[in-house]
């Protein structure tokens, strides 16, 4: 009976020791940061002043190599821009950051999800096979307006997707 209890206590101690050995260096040497694998750091308070997420750079960009990048800001309580336009059958690079708290960008009807944390840029490569309008509700409680926080991704076929220059940004109004 006693040895059983000792084994139990010993197991807990061993587990704690192993956990500390892993966790301490993980936190101390920034391994958690590295595990996120994200080199992009942004200041959520000055997104509008300079850098990648100034308002003139938001929306859909067709890069010189033909790839498509969508840039968004999540904030209490909307995603900006409210509607983004993308083509079908092409990997779309979504880059999104937060101006305040934690949000979760979820594209309804798909398994495309991005956790959005202030100070970081979240990125995902998503592809849409069907044209249509996809709602993007926030799935991380972010405050009193959370339940109304959603935007749209409008997917059109590649033929319908308007052509644009690298320095132009497309919105749903381009349709």
């Amino acid at each position, binding site marked *: 009976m006693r040895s059983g209890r000792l084994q139990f206590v010993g197991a807990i101690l061993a587990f704690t020791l192993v956990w500390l050995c892993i966790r301490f260096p993980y936190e101390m040497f920034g391994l958690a940061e590295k595990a*996120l*694998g*994200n*080199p*992009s750091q942004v200041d959520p*308070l*000055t*997104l*509008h*002043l*300079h850098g*990648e997420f*100034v*308002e*003139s*750079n938001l929306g859909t*960009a067709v*890069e*010189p*190599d033909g*790839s498509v*990048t969508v840039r968004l*800001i999540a*904030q*209490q*309580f*909307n*995603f*900006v*821009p*409210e509607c983004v336009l993308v083509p079908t059958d092409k990997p779309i*690079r979504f*880059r999104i950051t937060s*101006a305040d708290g934690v949000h979760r960008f979820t594209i309804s009807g798909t398994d495309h999800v*991005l*956790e959005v*944390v202030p100070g*970081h*840029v*979240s*990125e*995902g490569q998503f592809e849409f096979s069907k044209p249509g309008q996809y709602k993007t*509700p926030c799935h991380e409680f972010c*405050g*009193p*307006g959370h*339940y*109304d*926080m*959603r*935007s*749209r991704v409008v997917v059109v076929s590649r033929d319908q997707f308007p052509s644009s220059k*690298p*320095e*132009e*940004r497309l919105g749903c109004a381009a349709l």
Partner: protein
Amino acid sequence: MVSGTKPLPSAGSQPPLRVPSYVAWTEETIAAASNGDTVRGLVLARRCIRCHGQEGFSNDPLVPDLAGMDKLTMWKQLNDFRAGKRKSAIMNPVATVLQIQDYADLAAYYSMLPTYPDPQDIRSFPQPAPASTHIAVAARLIFGGDGQRGIPPCQACHGPIGHKNGAPSLVAQNSDYIRGELEGFAKGDRANDIDMPMRTIASLMTDDEKQAVAAYYGAGLGSLPVGASAPAK
């Protein structure tokens, strides 16, 4: 969070920079905007009386009431007027003549003026209560928003249940002024909202909804529970 594996496109492909406001809500900015001298503000406010009223209640419904105005809001708007980020034939030169410290002093003074000076005093809410259909439309948007269209409730940022830096309280604001600003945001004539929340929301609202929300706040109903009648006059 997902890592970025491919290199980012070069910065040379960015469109021309458009900045809505030079104000950023850093700790230094908040401290500068919050630490005004109320007495100095009172003296400075003498030059605002003609348009914004003796006690911060304007006689012209197109001119905003300043009584009880949030300090950060006032400081930011004056900065934006100075920088030309918000256009007004009257306020652009006024803000240029004032010093930056004056903004904080005026903000300190106006923020402490009561929004309900006296229930019998009709200066605070000179506008009639909106029609009952408008009350229902406005109350729905102000207290609940519209999730189908992505319109958050007004009170989540403008109070009383939530607050965002730079978002003014609307409980004692003129209806014509609110409506005009909503139309300005929707058209893009006013574009000094940081990260575009108001341009986004106003462009999603119908004209009828803009009118209803403006009339609801203008009648002084914004601070009351849903369905309550206008304050006694």
